Every structure is written in structure tokens, then in C-alpha cells.
């Protein structure tokens, strides 16, 4: 029998292109979520068997271009240079093809074996767009597969195109012409690059020259020869005086020129209004005055559903783990290895239970967030909140994780991945623990009556929450002036058209994040609960003959005698 061949497929595309839907369609729920080494960018991998081939598919971060200005874009292009995927699939929104092809032109510049997945082609068709696919394939030099990933259409054709493209030996894609002036400067730089074998092998000489001309910080960092840098500088000055604009803008303009040329030939009626319904919805949802209350209401609804619906399975799970602990105590042979019994019941079962009890809440919360994200509302929420958040130096989207932080810090910190900018993400993560989470509420409820008169209790509770928020704002300001220094990123964000989410997509999102919670929180909470158990149980108090003492009293005495008790006393 023929051995299965492995094909490494990288999935690229703009945010909102339906890239994740395509990924889910290809891999199903069988995938693995992790991080790229050293950065907080999510790396999702999955595999699919097709026709004797094993397709190892990596879902790259959603990006608009491949510059060195954002972590996501750097991760994307370095993945391509380091891992040499056999095929790169660029997922395009067919109804907005010109903008989405911009990333494709940059992938072509990298000379990767490219397949274009023309997603949401049903919406494009309903808008009256007609594609001459054979013509477009010829002009772009890549296979194009029309798809409707949300309805499960086109995956077989896509896999066939992937397999065929992987089998080709010659690199596909056309070379984008930048016009005589830029080409002349590119040739000059390329000729100087001839001696830099390692750069040419990794990036190719044309791409390196292009990026140098674009002032790409990462590529320039590799060049230490003064003659090359001098030439780059001279070329940039020359082009600027000749064409009146910086080379990076000229090059971007050429890319768009190439795209609109191709679309004029192969796409009928490229000017469409994609937003008619979305515009009307936005009139209400992002309304100057109504926007904020609607957002508040939706958030309230998400939390309300999370905690009311979640409380039932939470009680069942709580009951189950209580019962399980009791069973173990019950069947345990009397008087043998009591420390092991205590480890299992008070350490392991209580620890695992402590993690799993929160799972229904977390799953429901993530389902709610996935719904808001997949419909396209999350971008509007960020828009609405940006005015407020901007004043304290955060991005509008930071609001969502901070709000979740009032429920539970673990999902809140996980939710910070919706923030694209690393600095914003870190600042938000660092202050989330200052939001009083649900578990702390019970402690407050215990402590406040012990210290304050009844009429003070309400205001004190409110004050604790407010102090948390105020300290968080102060911390953000300090962080942004010290370790997270840097220019604040100007707000530029796409508002995607509203879409009806698919149940499959929602469930996969919810499940992925739920698993991540179990893995991350599970290991830490379980570990700590065993440590805590150890501190509270050892050393055991000397056995006294006093059997008559009540169990409560005995427990209290044991606690006092243990390490934890001694630490507490010392404090």
C-alpha cells in the first residue's frame, strides 16, 4: 500500500474573511490550540485525511497585510519562511474581493504555493458579482476555489486544489510588476544583495529588496552592510522625489493597481453595496445615545444567562463531588493510611471539583462571547466603549475582558486574546485581577458584616468594587508610563457586516476555550489545592486521648497545629 503523504497547509486571510469557518470545515473539532513560541498569539492546528494524503493545517492569525508592525503579521510571515508550508491557502471574502486580495498579493511576493479560497461566494452572487474564475486564476497565477464554508460547501474542491498545488514543483503565482521606477531601484538593491546568501535563501532577493525599500524594520535589522543601506536610502529618496510619495505607499498603490486591473478583467460589477442591512442595524446598535444602553443590556443578558443557567449544572456537579468524597471516606478501610484518604478527598477530589464546578459557567460565558463575536457585534461594542476606554489609555475592546473579570478572572484573562495589540493585551491582563470576581463576593459578604454597622455595609461593598476599578485605572496609567511604554496605537478597526453565526462554529469556539480553561486552570488549581491541603494537614497534631472533643473542635485544633495554621499565627 502506498504510504500517506503529509502536506503542510497554512491558512491565511483577513480578519472577518471566514478563515476560522473554513478551518473548522476542514478539520472538524479535531484540532489543537496552542501558542506560537514567545508570543501571545494563538496557534491552532488540525489535520484532515484526504485521498491518501494527510493535510496538516495551521490556522495563521487573521491579518490585513504582512508588514513588521504587528506581532500577528510577523508571526504569519515568519511561519511561512521558517516552516515552508507546502501550500498556503488565502481565504478571501468574495463580496469584498479587492480589499481581501491585498494580502494575496503579499503572499505572491513571498513566492509561496498559493491557493485562493473564495469564501462567501453565495453572498457575492446575491449582490450580483460574477467571477470569471479561469481568467482570474490566470491573472493571479493561483488556483481559486469558490466556497460557502458556513454551509459546508467547497471543502472537497479546496482539498483537491491543495493536493494538486502541493504536487507542482515550480512555484506558482505571478510576479507583480511595480512599474519602471520601482523596478529599477529593486534591481539596484538586488544586485548588492547577491553576496548575502543566507538572506536570499531565506527570503529571496526580490522580496528582501522590496521590504528594504518599504523600510521594513525586521529585514533592515538583518542588513549590516553600509553600502546596501546607503543604496536603500538613496533609492527611497530618489523614488520620493520622483513620485512624490514614500516607497511603501507607492508599492501599496501598485499592489492595489494590480488587483483592480485583475478584477476589471475577471469580475463583473465590482462596485457593490455590501452593507445595506448592516447599515440599518448599525443605525440602532451604534446609535450615539442608544448604543451604550443596548450594549449594557446585552452584556447583562450574557451574564444573567451565564449565572442563572449555569447554576443548575453547577449544583449538580458540586453535589456529585461532595458525594464522591463521601463515598471514598465510606469505603476506605477504617484507620488505614488516613493521610492518603485525606489527600484523595480533600486534595484531589476537592481540587478537581473546584475546577469542574465552574465549567458550566465558563462554557456558557464563552458561548455568549462567541455569539457576540461571530455576529460581528463585538467590533461595535469596542467602537461604543472606545470613547470611555480611550480616556484611561486602553482600547475599546479591553472592556470585554475587564467586564468578564467581575465574573471570574480565568476566562477574563483568556478573553484578552480578542485584543490584537500586545501592549494592550498585557496591560489588560495585568489589571484584571483587580476586578472583584464572583468568588471574592462571598468573602466580602463574610467580612463586611464583621467590621461595619448595618447601614454602612452596602456602601462599603460598593466602595470595594470602586476601589478595585480606580486602582486598576491607576495601574494602567503607571504601566503605560513604565514597562509598557510606547506610542498609543491609533484606533483603526474594521466593522464587519453582521452575519448569522452557525451553531457549529459557536460550539467549536465554546469547546476550544472550555478545554483551554480545563487544561490551564485545571493544572494550576489542582496543584495549588494539593499544596494547600498539605499545608493545612501537616504536621498532624499529637494524638491525645480526648475522644470526647467534638469533630469541629478536633479539626480546628489540627488546623492550628499545621503549617498553614502556624503561618497564620505568625502573621
Amino acid at each position, binding site marked *: 500500500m502506498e504510504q500517506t503523504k503529509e502536506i503542510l497547509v497554512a491558512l491565511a486571510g483577513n480578519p472577518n474573511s471566514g478563515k476560522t469557518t473554513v478551518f473548522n470545515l476542514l478539520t472538524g473539532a479535531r484540532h489543537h490550540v496552542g501558542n506560537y513560541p514567545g508570543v501571545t498569539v494563538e496557534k491552532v492546528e488540525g489535520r484532515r485525511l484526504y485521498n491518501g494524503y494527510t493535510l496538516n493545517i495551521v490556522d495563521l492569525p487573521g491579518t*490585513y*497585510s504582512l*508588514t513588521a*508592525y504587528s506581532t500577528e503579521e510577523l508571526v504569519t510571515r515568519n511561519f511561512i519562511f521558517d516552516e515552508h508550508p507546502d501550500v498556503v491557502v488565502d481565504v478571501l471574502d468574495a*463580496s*469584498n474581493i*479587492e*480589499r481581501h486580495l*491585498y*494580502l494575496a498579493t503579499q503572499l505572491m511576493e513571498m513566492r509561496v504555493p498559493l491557493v485562493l479560497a473564495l469564501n462567501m461566494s453565495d453572498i457575492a452572487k446575491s449582490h450580483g458579482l460574477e467571477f470569471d474564475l479561469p481568467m482570474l486564476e490566470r491573472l493571479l497565477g493561483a488556483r481559486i476555489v469558490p466556497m460557502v464554508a458556513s454551509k459546508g460547501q467547497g471543502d472537497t474542491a479546496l482539498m483537491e486544489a491543495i493536493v494538486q498545488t502541493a504536487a507542482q514543483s515550480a512555484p506558482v503565482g505571478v510576479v507583480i510588476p511595480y512599474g519602471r521606477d520601482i523596478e529599477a531601484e529593486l534591481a539596484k538593491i538586488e544586485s548588492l544583495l547577491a553576496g548575502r546568501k543566507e538572506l536570499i535563501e531565506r527570503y529571496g532577493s526580490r522580496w528582501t529588496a522590496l521590504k528594504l525599500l*518599504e*523600510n521594513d524594520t525586521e529585514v533592515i535589522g538583518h542588513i549590516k552592510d553600509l553600502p546596501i543601506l546607503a543604496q536603500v536610502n538613496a533609492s527611497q529618496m530618489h523614488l520620493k522625489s520622483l513620485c512624490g*510619495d*514614500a516607497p*511603501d*505607499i507607492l508599492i*501599496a*498603490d501598485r499592489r*492595489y493597481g494590480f488587483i483592480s486591473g485583475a478584477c476589471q478583467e475577471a469580475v463583473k460589477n465590482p*462596485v*457593490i*453595496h*455590501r*452593507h445595506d442591512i*448592516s*447599515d440599518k442595524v*448599525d443605525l440602532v446598535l451604534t446609535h*450615539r445615545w442608544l448604543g451604550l444602553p443596548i450594549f449594557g443590556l446585552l452584556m447583562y443578558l450574557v451574564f444573567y444567562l451565564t449565572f442563572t443557567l449555569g447554576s443548575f449544572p453547577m449544583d449538580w456537579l458540586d453535589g456529585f463531588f461532595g458525594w464522591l468524597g463521601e463515598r471514598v471516606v465510606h469505603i476506605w478501610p477504617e484507620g488505614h493510611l488516613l493521610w492518603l484518604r485525606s489527600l484523595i478527598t480533600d486534595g484531589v477530589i476537592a481540587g478537581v471539583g473546584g475546577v469542574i464546578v465552574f465549567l458550566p459557567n465558563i462554557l456558557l460565558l464563552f458561548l455568549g462571547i462567541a455569539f457576540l463575536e461571530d455576529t460581528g457585534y463585538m*467590533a461595535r461594542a469596542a*467602537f461604543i466603549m*472606545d*470613547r470611555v476606554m*480611550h480616556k484611561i489609555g486602553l482600547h475599546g475592546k479591553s472592556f470585554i475582558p475587564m467586564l468578564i473579570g467581575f465574573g471570574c478572572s480565568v476566562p477574563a484573562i483568556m478573553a484578552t486574546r480578542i485584543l490584537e495589540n500586545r501592549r494592550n493585551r498585557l496591560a489588560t491582563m495585568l489589571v484584571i485581577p483587580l476586578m472583584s470576581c464572583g468568588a471574592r463576593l462571598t468573602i466580602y459578604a463574610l467580612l463586611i458584616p464583621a467590621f461595619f454597622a448595618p447601614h454602612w455595609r452596602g456602601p462599603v461593598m460598593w466602595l470595594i468594587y470602586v476601589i478595585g476599578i480606580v486602582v486598576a485605572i491607576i495601574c494602567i496609567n503607571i504601566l503605560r508610563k513604565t514597562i509598557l511604554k510606547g*506610542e498609543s*496605537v*491609533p*484606533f*483603526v*478597526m*474594521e*466593522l*464587519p*457586516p453582521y452575519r448569522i453565526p452557525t451553531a457549529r462554529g459557536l460550539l467549536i469556539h465554546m469547546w476550544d476555550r472550555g478545554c483551554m480553561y480545563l487544561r490551564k486552570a485545571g493544572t494550576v488549581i489542582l496543584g495549588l489545592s494539593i499544596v494547600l491541603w498539605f499545608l493545612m494537614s501537616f504536621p498532624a497534631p499529637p494524638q491525645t486521648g480526648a475522644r470526647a472533643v467534638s469533630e469541629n473542635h478536633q479539626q480546628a485544633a489540627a488546623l492550628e497545629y499545621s503549617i498553614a495554621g502556624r503561618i497564620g499565627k505568625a502573621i
Partner: protein
Amino acid sequence: MPLCDMTAGKTVRVVSVDAGHGLKSRLAAMGVLPSAALHIMRNEGAGQIIVSIKNSKVVLGRGASHKIFVTAE
């Protein structure tokens, strides 16, 4: 004229983008390049501006909108 001074409902053409490399390339990727047409969907005189460019709706912060120079069509 900077984009922030244009009223909603107008279609304008980009003349230049006077910003750092990061913002410039970000905007270029969105299609905000010299001679591109922008339709201003919302501008309330303060806060962000919503424009439509190449069939997508983009929110620009006030800061960014100061740096994009346009002429009325």
C-alpha cells in the same frame, strides 16, 4: 483638509496620509491610499469617524482622522 473636518454623507478622495510607518501601512492595507475614494458614514465632530472604503466599513480614531488629508469630490 483633514478628514476630521469633513461632514458625514460626503464622498472624498485621499490626498495624502501624514502618519508614522505603522499607521500608514495599516491604513494602506485597508485601502486608504492617495487617490482612493472614501465615503464618510459618520462624523459627530468628536470621537471616532466611520468611513466606507472599498466596500468595508472602517472606524478611525480621531487621532488617525487628523492625519488623513482629503479633498471633496
